[in-house]
């Protein structure tokens, strides 16, 4: 097949041509994969081919090796591994050849493809000669090839986990990279590629960073690169420093003074992208020190292996003035652009982190700056002063901050209403929000907000709701935290007198023409939700009045016909906000008996609306409406049965939504809610639900994060229907057993361990639900055959020693449930298990209260089981 022409056609501006080309590529791939990949690599390597086709060939080749979705990626990896060895060798050889192509796009695409192949093969101990051949004559190569080699090494380090490459090879990679970076390298591209490669290789250099000489050398090279005349190299070098600071914090002491000097220079003088990285370095150091100090705070035994060097504290007198300077470098339109990121914002963020790191010590360094600038005619100075103030509100003690806030509050309120600059108002509203977030509320016990100034605050904030969208949005945020601070205030809240006014203003905001800007509408609804959530019994009647209002809004949102796709998206977003708001209100009113009963009469109408929201879409269901229905189920209890005939199809639709897996996950949760509401009345729908859930479990397409909740849902169903679960027992148990086997004997990174634990927890919750569901029924003996495996599973996860506290608690609870339900039938089995001895004893002496309780339950259940 003449692949060049097809590849050209695939980039044609003519849609039909393009489509045909894509179709024939697809066919080629399906009919003869090795041939397809071979011709792609051949195309890429062929210096005579046009650059566009070479580039596309490389891209398709790369995409044939990796995908975003977990299951797809797994398939591709398996497919490559099972490919004919000859073909693979040829492809790899072509790729390596391409690295010395004179066409830079070809080299770059080849680099990425090589890294992908390495990502698959190196962990399998295949392609051992790769690194050697890449490095063999790196120094004799022409600059362009050298650059490609270094780039490839960089990508490779990004793709391959560090433990896969042995130290000898790491040393060679680092040597090549460092040589490429050094000032003696004349070619800028090579130096840049080397610097970027080092960024990816830092995680591999564990051993080299322990060795003083090697570390000194590496650090020197990186620091030198920050002084390169080429700004991209300087930026990449600072990126390396950021990465080093988080990976090797404990090794930085000797260099911190030099780094400080370099960063100050960069922040003050360099181009913005470089300056941003220089600030990022200090933010990263703050992150490290905050983590260390937090760990230290929790665990006073001090056996933590990382000590805090207090770099920030020591740098404070010079660091803070540098950061304050950056605050004055605002951009004119930064408030309008949601994604804006500039040196002033980075400086403020870093200042906030510094405040969290050093606490009270920062205050004297910042206060003079605020005092000097807060009343200056230039808005930049006033804004910077306000920003500085807002940034240091988290970290220092309330005792230190409250006097400042008490002085500033009135000034800020007047700035919020009167300052001519919208920037200043925006930042002022934000800073007020920070005051309420950190210095207000029962947990702080401070007196920043009193009964008297609460009224004034409320009035000013509500007034600002009419300001520009960005200011109004910040005012909403401030109101959010003001309300939150009164969450546990008791029967009477200081906000009660203005409750109606607040609600009204927020609703008005949602109707503003420009509410779509600066996510103002979303912020207004979020604040409304928080105000409702934190309201007290006094205002329950007013919350109830809100029900028909929001229902009407939702009703109106359903009216729009023949919307454009953009209009439809907006409609759906609005419906999401309204359903979310109704969910909060239902939850709030449903949480106490009296208000629950007054809410009841609305249930039919609300459900009717939610069903209409569902009906609006053809293929998918609305996540927020689904969640709100879960809240309705708790309010109506068993009466929810009357909605089931109509609602069921949407429930099923939600469970089938693999694409938007969050929708599926939410729906699984709602199945649980409905089980608890309906109890045995769920029975008529169980066949359908269980069938779908089992189908979901066996699918490779469904995001794996949905599977643990599905197992928990088995438990919910079993608890609701009791022995009726018999019908599904065999299927559920075999699915559980398969998953249980997968969830033991796994070694992997933190993410995998976390997932494994959530999977185990789901499985265990299912077992508990099944056992307790069958308890005291005549059919408990049906469970006996599963007992040995379940006990084995418990023993298995105990021996793995990698379970978290939640799993531990659930697991030992299952042991109790098994004993409780099976009684004497399982007595001897239980006594033989490791779980009933070492595991149980370990849990019994746990310091975690919940584990201990679960263990005591298990101990009791076992003792009862063997006493009969």
């Amino acid at each position, binding site marked *: 097949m003449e692949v060049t022409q097809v590849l050209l056609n695939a980039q044609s501006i003519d849609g039909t041509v393009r489509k045909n080309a894509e179709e024939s590529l697809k066919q080629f791939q399906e009919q003869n994969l090795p041939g397809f990949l071979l011709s792609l690599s051949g195309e890429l390597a062929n210096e005579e081919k046009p650059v566009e086709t070479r580039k596309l060939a490389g891209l398709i080749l790369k995409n044939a090796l990796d995908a975003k979705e977990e299951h797809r990626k797994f398939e591709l990896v398996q497919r490559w591994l099972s490919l004919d060895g000859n073909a693979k060798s040829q492809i790899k050889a072509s790729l390596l050849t391409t690295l010395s192509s004179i066409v830079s796009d070809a080299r770059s695409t080849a680099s990425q493809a090589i890294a992908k192949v390495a990502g698959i093969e190196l962990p399998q101990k295949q392609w051992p000669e790769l690194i050697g051949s890449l490095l063999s004559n790196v120094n004799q190569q022409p600059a362009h090839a050298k650059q490609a080699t270094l780039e490839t090494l960089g990508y490779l380090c990004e793709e391959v986990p560090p433990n896969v490459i042995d130290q000898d090879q790491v040393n060679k990679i680092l040597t090549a990279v460092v040589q490429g970076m050094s000032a003696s390298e004349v070619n800028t591209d090579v130096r840049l590629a080397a610097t970027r490669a080092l960024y990816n290789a830092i995680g591999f250099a564990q051993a080299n960073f322990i060795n003083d000489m090697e570390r000194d050398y590496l650090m020197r090279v990186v620091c030198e690169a920050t002084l390169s005349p080429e700004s991209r190299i300087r930026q990449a070098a600072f990126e390396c420093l950021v990465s080093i600071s988080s990976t090797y914090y404990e090794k930085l002491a000797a260099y911190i003074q030099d780094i400080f000097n370099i960063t100050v220079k960069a922040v003050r003088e360099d181009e913005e992208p470089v300056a941003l990285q220089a600030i990022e370095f200090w933010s990263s150091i703050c992150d490290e020190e905050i983590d260390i100090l937090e760990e230290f705070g929790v665990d006073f035994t001090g056996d933590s292996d990382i000590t805090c060097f207090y770099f920030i504290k020591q740098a404070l007198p010079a660091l803070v003035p540098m950061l304050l300077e950056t605050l004055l470098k605002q951009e004119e339109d930064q408030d309008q652009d949601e994604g804006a990121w500039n040196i002033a914002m980075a400086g403020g963020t870093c200042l906030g982190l510094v405040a969290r790191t050093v606490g009270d010590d920062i205050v004297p360094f910042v206060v003079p700056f605020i005092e000097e600038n807060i009343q200056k005619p230039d808005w930049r100075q006033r804004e910077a002063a306000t920003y500085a103030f807002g940034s240091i509100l988290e970290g220092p003690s309330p005792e230190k901050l409250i006097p400042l806030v008490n002085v500033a509050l009135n000034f800020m309120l007047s700035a919020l209403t009167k300052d001519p600059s919208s920037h200043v108002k925006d930042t002022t509203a934000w800073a007020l929000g920070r005051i309420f977030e950190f210095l207000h509320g029962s947990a702080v016990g401070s007196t920043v907000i009193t009964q008297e100034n609460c009224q004034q605050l409320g009035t000013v904030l509500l007034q600002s709701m009419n300001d520009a969208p960005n200011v109004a949005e910040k005012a909403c945020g401030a109101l959010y935290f003001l309300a939150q601070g009164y969450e546990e205030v008791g029967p009477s809240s200081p906000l009660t007198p203005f409750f109606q006014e607040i609600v009204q203003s927020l609703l008005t905001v949602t109707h503003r023409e420009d509410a779509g800007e600066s996510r103002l509408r979303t912020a207004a609804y979020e604040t409304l939700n928080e105000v409702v959530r934190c309201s007290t019994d006094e205002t329950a009647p007013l919350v109830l009045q809100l029900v028909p209002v929001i229902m009407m809004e939702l009703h109106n949102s359903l009216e729009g016909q023949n919307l454009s796709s953009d209009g439809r998206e907006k409609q759906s977003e609005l419906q999401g906000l309204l359903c979310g708001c109704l969910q909060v209100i239902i939850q709030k009113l449903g949480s106490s008996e009296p208000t629950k009963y007054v809410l009841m009469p609305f249930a039919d109408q609300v459900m009717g609306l939610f069903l209409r929201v569902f009906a609006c879409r053809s293929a998918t269901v609305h996540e927020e409406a689904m969640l709100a229905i*879960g809240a309705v189920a*708790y309010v109506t209890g068993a009466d929810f049965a009357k909605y089931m005939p109509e609602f069921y199809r949407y429930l099923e639709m939600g469970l089938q939504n693999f694409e938007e897996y969050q929708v599926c996950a939410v729906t699984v949760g709602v199945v649980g*809610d409905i089980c*608890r509401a309906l109890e045995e009345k769920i029975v008529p729908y169980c066949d359908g639900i269980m069938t779908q859930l089992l189908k979901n479990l066996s699918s490779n397409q469904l995001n794996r994060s949905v599977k643990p909740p599905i197992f928990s849902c088995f438990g919910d169903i079993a608890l609701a229907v009791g022995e009726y679960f018999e019908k599904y027992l065999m299927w559920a148990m075999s699915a559980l057993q398969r998953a249980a086997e997968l969830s033991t004997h796994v070694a992997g990174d933190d993410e995998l361990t976390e997932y494994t634990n959530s999977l185990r927890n789901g499985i265990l919750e299912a077992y508990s639900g099944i056992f307790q569901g069958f308890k005291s029924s005549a059919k408990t003996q049906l469970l006996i055959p599963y007992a040995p495996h379940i006990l084995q599973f418990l023993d298995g996860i105990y021996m793995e020693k990698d379970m978290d506290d939640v799993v531990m608690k659930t697991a030992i609870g299952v042991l*109790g*449930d098994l004993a409780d339900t099976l009684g004497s039938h399982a007595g001897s089995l239980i006594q033989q298990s490791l779980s009933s001895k070492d595991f149980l004893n370990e849990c019994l002496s746990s310091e975690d*209260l919940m584990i201990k309780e679960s263990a005591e339950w298990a*101990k009791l259940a076992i003792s*009862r089981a063997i006493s*009969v």
Partner: protein
Amino acid sequence: MLMFFLSLQFIMKWLFKFDKDKWQKRQRQMQKNLRSMESIRKIKRELILFFKRNHEFFHVERCIEDAAGDPIAIQKMFDSIPVMVRDMMSGNESFQLAATARVSFLLSTENPPIDVVIQSGVVPHFVRFLIEQYGFQHKLYSVSALYAIGKGSLEQAVAVIKHGAIPMFIRLLCCSEECYQLKELVAAALGSLANQSPDFRDYVLQFGTLTPLLSLLDNHLEPPMLHEKITLLRACSNTLAIVCQGNPAPSFNQIRSALPILRRLIHLNPPVGVIGDVFEDACLCLSYLSNGSAEQIQALIDADVCARLVMLLGFSDGKIVEHVLRTVGNIFKGVDSQIQKIMDAHIIPSLLYLSQSDNYDVEVRWDAACALSNAARRGSNEQIRFLVNQGCIGPLCDHILCPDRKTSILCLKGLKSVLKASEIMHSTRNLYTLIITDFDGFGKVEKLQSDPDIGEMAMKLLMKYGV
């Protein structure tokens, strides 16, 4: 925060001590504070599991209700005593509670398996469940079980005492919380133990039972008189009456502190219903307390009860009148000054009236006659003169042939004492023989001559004073 909420057992254990109402309130409270559907789900799932795991506890009341009067269910429960015993010995409070409730229920059935329960070794656990940490319900079931055992045979009651129940009972009576129902049951349990024998009674008294009992009575006499408050009073008064009686009688010093409260109790108004029972118990107590030395009688008089006693003789309730008559009769056994004290309270007309009244049981008439006889036997000559002048010879003669031998004897002795006094006071002529003759006194005494016990006394009297 969530960690705290999730620790349901912790909440139940330390905050609410298995008080279900409070617990449910707390449960609602914590749901109120939950912010997301996810956290609500987590809690709800935990809750359901918790309910299922503690099924025994949450269904114990219904299970007992269903079993009541159902012999098969009771037998089934009886068979599972070993599991209950294990539950009680476990560290899980909800299971301990459920088991305690079941055993306590079994002990309340028609044929309580007291010996089986004692032999199973749980009595010390019942006692242990009375300490602070356990909840109200739990204590209630435990006390009720101990009460049932304490009501059994003497040997069975020993098991309760042996394991230190009495000091725990007293601690419960003293606790500052109201819990009327629990205190009522404790008071009754103490009463049932004291009722076993004088030794048991003294043992109960030695631990200082009286003080909390009296202060409960003292503190709960003010309105509003809620039903549970009144029944608590009744249990206390009943136990008080039990510890005041017995043969040998309790040492007076141990019980004299009851007098001020008893005085208050006999002023309760109106003495009907349960309050009437309390009132009656108080009168009964006074009759026991008055039965003793002159010092004891003096204590009674000092407690300023005489005038009230006279008033009580006008009550229509025969039981109360009977107890008061005994008390008065006992006071008449005292020294002259004590007799004078009660005579000054105008007691004699009431006694004369009662000795002839048809409004009460016949015993009232007899007791009134005995009281008069006591006065006549113990009084000074001056006092006898007063008695005769008031007309007490008539009743003595009337009851001399009483079918009740004790009354009969006392009346004979009373007449003898009157005649003796007359002999001294009237040197020339025994004036009172005339009055006795008027009431056919000697004719009646004549009929007693053949009596094996008092025939001789009757004969001597006739020979000396007969006409």
